[in-house]
């Protein structure tokens, strides 16, 4: 790989040093300024067949022009094009001042391997820029755009500091492989692999460094990313250097986090009453004398702070930006903590008369976390409320349920919950993660042919995650192994090298424009996982835990060739086509290469004569696209190879007097290959009243075939009973709608609002090689309770993650009858043939609403989100909503949900549909007030001040009876509650 970098660099140098510059007579020079009179670097000035780009001072020179009148045009993205006739005579001066374009249509949108103006977009692409991001305490980047973009759902995994999110673009395209979108930061595609010690790899990117999110949804936009594009692509662009003198920005936030709601469990007195009435003498004797609210004990109101300092400007003609951030967040669950230090450096020099643009981005992050033992959440709801937290005993003086052996030793009851506070206080789980990623991108516009760009992008992403887990020997939670003193470590080193050529040419004669790109990419993902034995608290190796190998180094590589052509006729009709071919090390040579094409047609209807003069409709565009994308994430790296694996130390087998490590043949599938998704998309973009209202509508149909699916295989044909192979089809169809408008726009008052709507429906259409209507499907959705119980199924003809349970029978009063289910197949036996499919964990409709009211220096904003049609299995109720849990036959008392008074169930009825509830909700994500104090030291001072106050997770409206229905898996099992957050922030510019 190093050689590749070297060769590419040499090649580039070779190309541009071999060129020469022609000199002719007659020239125009001058300066281009923006509306405020500041120089505009990077603007394109063209006259006749000559063109150039303004330098960092906004200055330009066009030489070799014929004398006489010539039409000069000046363009810059986001600005209206200026056209003027200039008379050239010798060295003529011409200064231009550009006005911003009101419609935003000239905004540049980042697409794969290039940029286009928004008006020329052929794909379904949504962009959110920093001014529209979610505000407040945002620890991890994806949360910036929650609720802002149609067609994408972002569901946080809970309230733990820095916890990740499940991101789904158009519902995802896979079943058992990955459904995560490809994330590309500044042109560098990231791997979706997790980093040891980080709850979420994205949490190592400071959200404050991000300028823009661009979500690519249809195949016209994504197919250029080929085999990694089926689940959508999210392009993240970080903040760049700016022109002019360095400007500083400092922001600081103080946040307070508080758990909103607790689960309803029996109060100590209700608990005592129940035991005294219903318990045996032995059980009554177990009652304690305390009144402990365990949920109160494990949660705290916690604080967090986020501080960022950045400086951006131009130093010696090199635009740069440097930033540093420090975040510290304490979790609402006692002992949870995240500390993050980040730094980034960006330089954006332009050399050789702006022919060579270089963007260098370097980011580094260091996080230190302590992860709370989340087992305490479940324990707190089910622990006996009459027992004390502390008591004098051998478990570190935390009260525990225990039995005394005949020899007098006291041993924790293996079936009882552990003391929640002990779970938290006696486990110390610390990690440290370092991550650095960055890239250097060279874009060279050929001297002899400025329309031809050569672009080289070299990127890296390395991280080191390590951590330790310590539990003292006397703690009941790891009593069997006498505590823990473990460590872990992992290194990741991912490399990216890309090179493409881009040629853009106006063909005036035929009123056309062509834009052609061809490129090559090399991507390598290498992880090194270190293996260590387990230690007990006395640092003695736990017997049988010695690793068979010191480390493992899984590695996968992807090589790609891609091309794209966009042809625009008469500024009205745009035809675009792309093709990418990817080779992946995950597949056997005969299946290694996949081809992913796309085609799109766009009609800019507002450019037609009948709309050109319209005062109402300022933009109207029809987009049609079709394309094929692939998916290979989530496939094991080497599953096509027949291999033997050595067993771990705990799985040796005794022959004679020796324990032998076992070599086992591994199941393999020689013919494993990509999943392929064909996407059809039809969309309409519109703008009204000179762009004050704009929006888009998209309808799509996605069909994935060769679905990677873990299916039962004919027994006897391989070394397992299931294999991950390409079988099965799934369909997604949906509608997306977004509208944004400036409802009121006056000098002192403005009101902006945006609304988006998403419908996504999916259906599995095939799951097996041999069609068989009796095949129930793939059980999924494991729950807590029993061993191996599942509540969901993926079946042909149904939604993914449909619930698959027994139909509860109710009495006349509407009370469920315990253990009585409908005999749906009428065979007089209740068995798994009576399970039925209904609803799904996946929401059908997702809505987002954002609005901002500004009056003079004040502004008030809010974001609301709603999911409709998602159902939730209330695993907490199913577990502790039964009296058996209270008077537990395993020799202890446990608290229960007040649900026992409703259902009256004595035993767990895990497979009853009684526990599936409608999880539709409306949540106010954010309510913010900000005050822009402006130049606080007078109009001439440089110091600007903004103050803001935010409340996040303000309220939720739902019928769901548990704490929070927004759970991506649809199974609510002691979910880490999302806290309500109060934030005060100060932002200083100077």
């Amino acid at each position, binding site marked *: *790989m190093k050689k590749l970098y070297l060769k*590419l660099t040499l*090649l580039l140098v070779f*190309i541009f040093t071999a*060129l020469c510059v022609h000199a002719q007579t007659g020239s125009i020079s001058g300066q281009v300024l923006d509306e405020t009179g500041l120089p505009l670097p990077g603007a394109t000035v063209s006259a006749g067949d000559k063109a150039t780009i303004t330098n960092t001072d906004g200055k330009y020179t066009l030489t070799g022009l014929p004398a006489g009148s010539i039409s000069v045009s000046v363009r810059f993205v986001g600005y209206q094009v200026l056209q003027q006739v200039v008379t050239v005579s010798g060295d003529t001066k011409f200064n231009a001042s550009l006005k911003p374009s009101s419609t935003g249509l000239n905004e540049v949108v980042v697409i794969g391997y290039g940029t286009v103006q928004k008006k020329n977009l052929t794909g379904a692409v949504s962009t959110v820029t920093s001014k529209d991001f979610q505000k407040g305490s945002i620890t991890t980047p994806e949360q910036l755009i929650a609720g802002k973009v149609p067609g994408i759902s972002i569901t946080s995994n809970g309230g733990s500091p820095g916890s990740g999110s499940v991101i789904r673009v158009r519902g995802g395209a896979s079943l058992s492989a990955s459904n995560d979108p490809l994330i590309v930061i500044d042109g560098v595609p990231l791997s979706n692999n997790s980093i040891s010690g980080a709850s979420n790899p994205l949490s190592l990117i400071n959200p404050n460094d991000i300028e823009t999110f661009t979500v690519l949804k249809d195949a016209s936009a994504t197919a250029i990313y080929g085999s990694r594009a089926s689940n959508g692509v999210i392009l993240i662009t970080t903040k760049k250097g700016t022109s002019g003198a360095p400007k500083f920005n400092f922001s600081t936030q103080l946040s307070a986090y508080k758990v909103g709601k607790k689960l309803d469990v029996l109060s100590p007195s209700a608990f005592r009453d129940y035991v005294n009435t219903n318990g045996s003498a032995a059980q009554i004797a177990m009652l304690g004398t305390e009144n402990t609210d365990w949920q109160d004990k494990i949660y705290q109101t916690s604080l967090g702070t986020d501080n960022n300092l950045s400086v951006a400007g131009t130093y010696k003609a090199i635009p740069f930006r440097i930033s540093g951030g420090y975040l510290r967040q304490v979790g609402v669950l006692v002992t949870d903590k995240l500390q993050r230090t980040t730094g980034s450096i960006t330089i954006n020099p332009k050399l050789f008369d702006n022919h060579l643009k270089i963007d260098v981005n370097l980011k580094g992050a260091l996080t230190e976390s302590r992860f709370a033992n989340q087992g305490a959440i479940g324990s707190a709801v089910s622990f006996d409320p009459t027992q004390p937290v502390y008591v004098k005993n051998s478990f570190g003086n935390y009260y525990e349920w225990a*039995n005394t052996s*005949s*020899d007098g*030793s006291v*041993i*924790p009851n293996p*079936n009882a919950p552990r003391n929640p506070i002990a779970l938290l206080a006696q486990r110390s789980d610390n990690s440290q993660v370092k991550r650095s990623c960055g890239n250097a991108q060279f874009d060279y516009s050929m001297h*002899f*042919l400025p329309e031809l760009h050569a672009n080289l992008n070299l990127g890296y992403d390395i991280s080191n995650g390590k951590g330790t887990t310590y539990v003292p020997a006397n703690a009941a939670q790891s009593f*069997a192994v006498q505590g823990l003193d473990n460590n872990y470590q992992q290194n990741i080193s991912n490399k990216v090298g890309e090179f493409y*050529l881009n040629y853009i040419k106006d063909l005036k004669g035929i009123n056309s424009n062509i834009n052609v790109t061809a490129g090559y990419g090399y991507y390598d993902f290498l992880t090194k996982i270190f293996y260590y034995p387990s230690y007990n608290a006395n640092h003695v190796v736990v017997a*049988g*835990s010695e690793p068979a*190998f010191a480390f493992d*180094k899984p590695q996968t*590589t992807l*090589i790609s060739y891609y091309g794209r052509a966009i042809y625009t006729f008469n500024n009205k009709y745009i035809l675009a086509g792309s093709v990418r071919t990817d*080779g992946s*090390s995950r597949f056997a040579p005969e299946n290694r290469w996949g081809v992913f094409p796309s085609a799109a047609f766009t009609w800019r209807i507002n450019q037609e004569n009948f709309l050109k003069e319209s005062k109402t409709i300022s933009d109207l565009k029809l987009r049609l696209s079709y394309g094929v994308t692939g998916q290979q994430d989530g496939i094991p*790296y080497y599953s096509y*190879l*027949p291999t*033997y*694996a*050595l067993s*771990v*130390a*705990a*799985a*040796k*087998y*005794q*022959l*004679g007097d020796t324990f*032998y490590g*076992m*070599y*086992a*043949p591994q199941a393999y599938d020689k013919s494993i290959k990509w999943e392929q998704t064909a996407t059809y998309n039809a969309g309409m973009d519109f703008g009204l009243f000179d762009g004050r209202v704009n929006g888009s509508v998209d309808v799509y149909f996605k069909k994935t075939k060769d679905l990677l699916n873990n299916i*039962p295989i*004919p027994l*006897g*044909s*391989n*070394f397992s*009973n299931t294999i991950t192979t390409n079988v099965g089809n799934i369909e997604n169809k949906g509608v997306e709608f977004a509208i944004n408008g400036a409802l009121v726009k006056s000098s002192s008052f403005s009101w902006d609002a945006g609304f988006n709507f998403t419908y996504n429906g999916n259906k599995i259409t095939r799951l097996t090689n041999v069609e*068989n209507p*009796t095949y129930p499907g793939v059980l999924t959705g494991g729950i807590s309770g029993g*061993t191996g*119980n599942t509540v969901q199924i993926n079946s042909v003809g149904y939604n993914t993650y449909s619930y698959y349970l027994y139909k509860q029978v109710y009495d006349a009063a509407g009370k469920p009858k315990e253990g009585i289910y409908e005999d749906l197949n009428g065979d007089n036996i209740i068995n*798994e043939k009576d399970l039925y499919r209904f609803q799904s964990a996946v929401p059908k409709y997702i809505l987002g609403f954002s609005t901002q009211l500004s009056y003079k220096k004040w502004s008030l904003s809010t974001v609301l989100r709603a999911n409709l049609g998602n159902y939730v299995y209330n695993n907490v109720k199913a577990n502790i909503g039964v009296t058996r849990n209270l008077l537990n*036959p*395993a*020799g202890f008392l446990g608290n229960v949900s007040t649900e026992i008074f409703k259902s009256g169930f004595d035993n767990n009825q*895990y497979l009853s549909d009684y526990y599936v509830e409608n999880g539709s909700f409306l949540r106010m994500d954010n309510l913010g007030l900000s005050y822009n104090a402006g130049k606080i030291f007078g109009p001439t001072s440089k110091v600007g001040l903004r103050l803001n106050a935010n409340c996040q997770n303000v309220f939720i409206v739902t019928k769901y009876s548990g704490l929070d229905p927004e759970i991506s898996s649809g199974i609510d099992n002691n979910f880490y509650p999302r806290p309500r957050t109060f934030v005060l922030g100060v932002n200083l510019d100077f």
Partner: protein
Amino acid sequence: MKKLNYIIGLSALIILSAGCKKDLNRTPTNAITADVAYNTPAGYKQVLAKMYGGFALTGNGGPDASVGDVAGIDQGSSDFLRLFWNLQELTTDEAAIVWNDPGLQDFHVMNWTSTNIMIRGLYSRSMYHITACNEFIRESAEAKLSSRNITGTEADNIRHYQAEARFLRAYEYWVLLDLFGNPPFVTENDPIGKFIPSQIKRADLFTYIESELKAIEPLLVDAKQNEYGRADKAAANALLARLYLNAEVYTGQARYTEAITAAQKVISSGYTLNPKYANLFLGDNNVNNPETILALNYDGVNSQTYGGTTYLINAAISAALDPKTFGVPNGGWSGMRATKNLPLLFADYSGATDKRAMFAAGSIEMNDITVYTDGLAVTKFKNITSTGTIPASANGVYASTDFPLFRLAEMYLVYAEAVKRGGTGAEGQAITYLNLLRTRAYGNASGNITSYTLNDVLDERGRELYWEGFRRSDLIRYGRFTGDNYLWPWKGGAKAGKGVEAFRVLYPLPSTDIIANPNLVQNAGY
């Protein structure tokens, strides 16, 4: 010139990118190819360890791995013994279980279907094991040995390994024969990959197993001459004896004389009864045990599993029963216990007279099948040694007790039953054998018999072999498994027990394999 440069540049790019294509041939760091695994005799031994360990353990990743050798089932319950035991014992009068795991409650009430996870689990385990044995048999073929330059004693050892792999395969086919009747059939001549095995009829499978066992008998190490934990000639004959005893069930043809011959071969190979019955099921039963012919080996440190004897010990007791005295101080899972029929096989189930009766607290009546204390706990298996110590264990839960797959007592009982069923043998010899067992059980001759009936043998098997995975097959052979001529609490779902349909003498082929393998025809009734 410029264009030329451009073309050169582009060509250079294409050439160097082509050079990188070899980077797509990534290989794993720690896993190895077959040729590396079998490169040395030591490598063969390590694959052989898997052929045996495939019985005892759930997979190569140990008990905490997310998946084992077979998928679609909780890893901790995916080992051979736990599944086999559930299917052979929970469906009978010997045991009922409390837990709610999917499909588990269906066994005792005899309500299972073809989608039952445990049924699929055992079937998958056996077929996986057979497929792995096929691979080993292929890789230990003579041509492979010579191509790998393995000769002399080392080659002889591997020839023994190969015969043992064929024995293990025959054993698994016997499991499928007994429980499923008509499974798919694959041998070392079938490929790995996209291939659909054919189904074999029960009678044909019987013939195959019989011919395999006869063929490998001369190739196996002599009785008692092999390493501990490895099959020898006696193991092959013991399986043959078991096979012939049930031949009438499997094929409709009685083969009792052959059963006697095979059993007698084992009996006269030098095995003797372990003087103390209880010691057969303790943590050090791998040493000083003259009775066990072949065992599944467990170890609390090196061979950890939540199945095997760890399951039999922990799930049989509750935390209230002082688990430390069972050698599992941190265990006690309150799982299964006996219906009253089992203790009532003993005239005195206190253990004071017949010491084989090992029961603990609980009420003998089972009013509620999901209440652990309804029914007597069975304390036969323990993880303490014969001297009262506890073997090393990683967590005070994993047991080191080995499980006897074949032991001498069974051969005595095969002999006695086959004689009574008309096989050519001596009834006097049979009485002697039965009295050997009874003398050990009583500690003296007070329990000895002078004559016996066919039914006495079933009861004696109940007393001698309970909880060792025989009961379902025994009840079927005696025509008492289905129907209503023999009942036990909660048979058929009724508290007093009720008859069930005759088709339940066979388990269904799992629906997953019926769907994956279009060659399969489901067993009648399912």
